[in-house]
């Protein structure tokens, strides 16, 4: 009985924290489902996990690049949905999205992140403008990411469209269970 109550509380908790009680919340930790996703070529073969938190009007999305389950590289996007683009300085030359291509992040340069709810508390779109370095020099990549909940809030689909790439990258995640 107590275990059921705890489980129910944990299911409801993300909705309450996010302040959007009417539906499932994107808030939570997500693990990738490679079999249902576009094949990615992550830096050093890492896998991607997401940690999303919604606190008041602020959203934080952390792309955790995992090496044997441990976070080897974290790419963090913090913004206020509907607010101004947030500027930050790129700290690492690693371009975590694709290790096979001769592309590096432009460390020391500025990137911007903005976002907006597509469905309040549930589906969100971000736009990142990031400088990168290629063999011909510096250029800019604009990446639009759509995080959409499905399956009653148990799955999350991230569709990533880079201005430079002809095809989208579609990644499916499952909500990481919180064990009592």
């Amino acid at each position, binding site marked *: 009985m107590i275990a059921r109550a705890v489980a129910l509380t944990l299911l409801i908790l993300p909705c309450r924290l996010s302040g959007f009680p009417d539906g499932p919340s994107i808030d939570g930790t997500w693990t990738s489902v490679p079999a249902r996703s576009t094949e990615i070529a992550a830096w050093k073969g890492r896998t991607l996990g997401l940690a999303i938190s919604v606190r008041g009007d602020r959203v934080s999305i952390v792309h955790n690049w995992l090496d044997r389950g441990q976070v080897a590289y974290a790419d963090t996007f913090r913004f206020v949905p509907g607010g101004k683009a947030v500027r930050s300085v790129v700290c690492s030359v*690693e371009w975590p999205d694709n290790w096979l291509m001769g592309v590096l992040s432009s460390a020391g340069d500025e990137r911007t992140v903005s976002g907006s709810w597509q469905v309040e508390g549930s589906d969100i779109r971000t736009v990142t403008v990031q400088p990168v370095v290629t063999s011909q020099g510096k250029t800019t990549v604009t990446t639009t990411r759509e995080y959409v909940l499905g399956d009653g809030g148990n799955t999350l689909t991230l569709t990533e469209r880079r201005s430079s790439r002809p*095809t989208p990258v579609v990644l499916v995640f499952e909500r990481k269970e919180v064990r009592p």
Partner: protein
Amino acid sequence: MKRLTVLLLLAWHAAGAAPADQPEHYVMSLPENWEITGALPSSAMLISLQGVANIGAPRLYFRYPPKWDYTFCDPLLDYYKSSRGMVFTGLRTPAEALDTLARYAKGYVVWDTHVRTSLIVAFTAAGVNRAIVVTEDLIPLAERHGLRMTEDLRGKFAGMTDVQIYEWAFAKYWPACNRDYLVYMGGEGGSVMKPGIADFGIHHACFFTDASTNPKDTLEYAFARKVFSSLKPLAIVMGWHSYAKDLEAQHVTLASGYGLRVEGLHTLPNMSFNHQIGLSPGFRYRNNHNVKPGQRVTPGKKVYISCIQTDCLGLGAWTKPGRGQIPYAWEVTMNWSWLAPAMLQYFYDMATPNDYFIGSLSGPGYMYPKAIPPRLLPAVIDTAYGMMKTLDLNVFEIMDHAAYWTSDGVDDDVPEDIVDAYFRGMPGVLGIVNGYRPAHTFAVRDGKPFVSYDYYLSEKRDDAEAAADIRELAALNPARPYFLLLHVREWSDIARVKGILDRLGPEFATVPLDTFLAMAAAAPTFATKYGAPMR
């Protein structure tokens, strides 16, 4: 008199020897299993027999199983038959092999199946004693063939660490070992060993080890340093590091630090045989050049792609479908020009007009330039350049992973002084290519380009995503011409690579590497960039 001659000939054949004017060549197939509890004891014995039987003449050749790293054993065997007129007699069983060839051995060494490392030591002992290696179970077989025990390692290493075992072996055998070669009997660990190179090491009385080159393994690392420092300058480290102990990058970094050249792999087969087969009379290495020296090639407004297959000629795609369909450059394992001349001739003879050879890898063998002491680098480059001239090569390839495990994978670049050193030491080259995974060093010296890989075509990458990657690179590098150097891992066959390139559209053109470099020299649209010096 006639009767006496017949009797002598009959006696000769009864002894298992061929007439003096007809060299004896034998061929035997090895099984797929390499487990200590499986076929390894028997196969290790046979490979050691190969090492001693091939002393003085190439007598025994093995056909390795289908899953073996090197895929050219059968084609090369056919090549020897057709080009050299060799006739091989098949051997079916270990007993038959010993019946025929045990006379070339002076005894046997017993290794301990409970201590895997004892087999590595046994190979050293076999080379020094001209012996074969056997397990306890195989002693009766060896004895039946007139062989006597020269060393018994059973129980000798119980409870000892690898470094203690190797120190024991070093003290006992090193004074009698060859200083021109060292054999790293690494690769697979645990209950498996694939000692394809052991015949060569026994043939040349080499010291065998798999001591860790990871600095964190302080004792084994110190031992590896001691052995490396005891070799002659520019000596060859045959074989491969242990996947269970350290990283390739650590192994090659340490070897390069002593000016040694790594010549993989631990599975390189039949080298005691191949080492003794020379070039055909009058043969000269001839590459398939597409550009004449000094020729200017003007590029169009396109994306130019050139493909290079790395990781040694004999691995992967050479014998797979599609070779010759598109221009392809191949890393030449340059030391084969003297380690196995006919084997290298086989690749030159088989080359199609679309197969273009390049020198590699950073030196006369596999080395990391950032790890080579600066005082040794000019001699390393000069030796490599000499081989390139012999092999008719005018493009050289550099790779450096000296900081692989400390840079989180941002490590394939070389500093400006190293770029200068190579161009200075190789004045006749058309250009130099660099990297393994994508790298970011680009330059031009005296009209000759230094170009790094812009894409690493993994054998595991989905074809559609690989094509999207290449098209994305073209979008991120908007100036035309754009020169996209593509590294193809050896496990991708050319038919697959062609399929990916065919998806790209008319803006993309796949060209031979020398044409690619000549065009890059004419219109270098890449930004000059160098790596940081080694800390």
